[in-house]
């Protein structure tokens, strides 16, 4: 009951004209960014953070804008999967498997609206899951002391590579690099400058927004320059959209699929190291095992479209649970959303729920609003979004680059930050070529300082005894999970990844890199 009244308060906050407009704008931009191949949810949110920041929006309005972008991108990813057989972002990979065959059979309109409805169901249920689960997690988190937090951060980094990680050494390298970058600047506890080499610009540390925009957005531009992707501007006009609304019987037959997939997706989202890509993968494979008796999956079975879409949108909602309740994100995009919170001077975690309930519940209400808007927007306006796909990347990428520059320049007005951003862009490009994940770097720059502070606090409390770190059963449990989480992918990672790739390649015969 208490939850419901808090939620009602949240709606009061979210339902102002400004916030509704921001949500609408965010949904629209998000869907476009999700739909355009090469611009995933992380990129989309990353480019927009500095803008939201420089526009001087308050905490709740900026969060509403950016989470709408996040949800929107999750919706948008399916459009190019279905029409062009090119996933707009990684989580939409599985939607290609049945979505594109449906489109080839002349049922593109049905596939699009069905996937829109599945996305809605997944996100809607996941938001309820968030409401129910997050406060429980907060209760546990209130028991955490500095030592437990340090273990929790380690757990987050250890599992970040995810079950599908192929090379844990590279994940560890990336995390250490990110944390190392965070230590640049004046030490918060003693006031000693570290790793600044006398450069005054570095005394404040490296702005994580600069790092994020450089690593994500600019490296994408370099990748495009390298490959000169002219091919992505394929002709979506060739595909006939067909009838737009799926029939009731079709919806009814897909409903159990949507519900099951939402549940699985949500679980995958909450667990550390899984994220939306795995959510859609698990939902699809489970559904295939369970209901695919005639072997129609992969040939345009509507349930094969409903499952991954419900799964990935539910995972997107689920991933918000650890991010809000513990301050530890479980996926790439939520790591970027964490950057939003930190840039706004909001520290997520258990205290957020007690000290700034208006931010939390306003955000949750905004998720519901964005979700309804997206459903309404995505069915009638689908024609508009398919036309967006016709903008060739050769025009689009320069715009992305320039908007990134504008955002970063807007924050500080200094050329130095732009140069640092270019440096990060080059670094991101090289690291992506070498298959080093970028998300741990981002998370490292975001959490590095908090991690160090907790470590030092824990040990100082115990008068310099390093065993303070493994003093309580809770922290021992977290350390054990961290070790298991780090070692598991070394054993199983190759198998899972190979299966994901194999399925995607096998059934659609196109290349996904």
């Amino acid at each position, binding site marked *: 009951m208490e939850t419901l009244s808090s939620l009602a308060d949240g709606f009061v906050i979210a339902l102002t004209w400004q916030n509704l407009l921001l949500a609408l704008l965010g949904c629209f931009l998000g869907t476009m960014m999700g739909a355009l191949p090469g611009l995933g949810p992380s990129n989309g949110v990353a480019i927009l953070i500095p803008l939201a920041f420089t526009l001087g929006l308050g905490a709740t309005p900026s969060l509403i804008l950016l989470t709408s972008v996040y949800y929107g991108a999750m919706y948008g990813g399916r459009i190019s999967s279905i029409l062009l057989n090119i996933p707009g972002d990684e989580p939409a990979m599985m939607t290609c498997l049945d979505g594109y065959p449906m489109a080839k059979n002349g049922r593109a309109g049905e596939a699009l609206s069905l996937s829109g409805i599945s996305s809605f169901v997944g996100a809607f249920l996941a938001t309820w899951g968030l409401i129910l689960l997050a406060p429980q997690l907060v209760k546990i988190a209130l028991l955490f002391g500095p030592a437990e937090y340090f273990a929790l951060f380690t757990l987050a980094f250890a599992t970040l590579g995810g079950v599908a990680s192929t090379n844990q050494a590279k994940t560890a390298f990336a995390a250490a690099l990110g944390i*190392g970058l965070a230590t640049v600047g004046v030490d918060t506890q003693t006031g000693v400058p570290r*790793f600044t080499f006398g450069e005054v610009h570095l005394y404040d540390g490296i702005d994580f927004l600069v790092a994020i925009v450089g690593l994500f957005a600019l490296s994408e531009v370099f990748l495009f320059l390298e490959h000169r992707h002219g091919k992505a501007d394929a002709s979506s006009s060739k595909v006939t959209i067909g009838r737009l609304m799926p029939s009731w019987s079709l919806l009814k037959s897909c409903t159990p699929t949507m519900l099951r997939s939402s549940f699985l997706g949500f679980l995958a989202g909450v667990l550390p190291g899984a994220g939306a890509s795995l959510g859609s993968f698990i939902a699809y494979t489970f559904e295939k095992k369970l209901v695919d008796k005639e072997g129609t999956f992969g040939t345009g079975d509507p349930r094969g479209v409903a499952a991954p879409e419900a799964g990935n949108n539910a995972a997107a909602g689920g991933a918000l649970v650890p991010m809000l309740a513990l301050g530890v994100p479980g996926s790439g995009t939520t790591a970027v959303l964490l950057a939003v919170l930190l840039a706004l001077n909001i520290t997520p975690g258990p205290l957020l729920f007690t000290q700034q309930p208006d931010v939390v519940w306003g955000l949750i209400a905004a998720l519901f609003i964005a979700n309804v808007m997206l459903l309404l927007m995505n069915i009638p306006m689908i024609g508009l979004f398919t036309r967006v796909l016709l903008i060739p990347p050769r025009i689009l990428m320069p715009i992305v680059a320039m908007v990134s520059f504008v955002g970063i320049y807007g924050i500080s007005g200094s050329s130095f930050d732009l140069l640092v951003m270019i440096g990060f862009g080059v670094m991101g490009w090289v690291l992506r070529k070498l298959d080093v994940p970028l998300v741990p770097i981002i998370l490292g720059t975001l959490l590095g300082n908090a991690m160090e502070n907790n470590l030092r606090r824990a040990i100082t409390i115990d008068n310099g005894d390093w065993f303070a770190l493994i003093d309580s059963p809770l922290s021992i449990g977290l350390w054990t999970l961290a070790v298991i989480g780090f070692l598991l992918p070394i054993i199983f990672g190759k198998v899972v990844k190979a299966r994901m790739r194999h399925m995607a390649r096998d059934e659609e015969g196109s290349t996904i890199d």
Partner: protein
Amino acid sequence: MSDRIFGAVGLILALGYAWAALIIEESFLSDAVGPKAFPLIIAAVLGLSSLVIFFKPDTAPHWPALPRLMEVGAAILVMILYAILLPELGFVIATALAATYLTWRLGTRPVSSVVSGCLTSLGIYAVFHLVLGLSLARGPLGF
């Protein structure tokens, strides 16, 4: 091979980082851990993972041929020039030049690139400066 080089570079980075951590001057007022310990732990993780990457390399990625590499290098150079010249030339001119260059190099015909570059610049200026009121770099001409 790429991973061997990467591992070696990583190891040098880790050693350099550890060295830079060791020469941090501690202040007389310090907590029990001090400013050096955490960076040293991180340096150890960085070094160990670099060693693993060095001794167990993945298959090398496909590196572009020299002309493509030059292409990326030139784009980096243009962006650096953009960052430096932005305060000198003002936002609209600098952005139009940089956007034109990038559009051209991504495979648009020169004339269309100029049009697209100018439109990009003016569009961003209109949306972010005129509508949203973001302060962008002012050049000698006032925009």
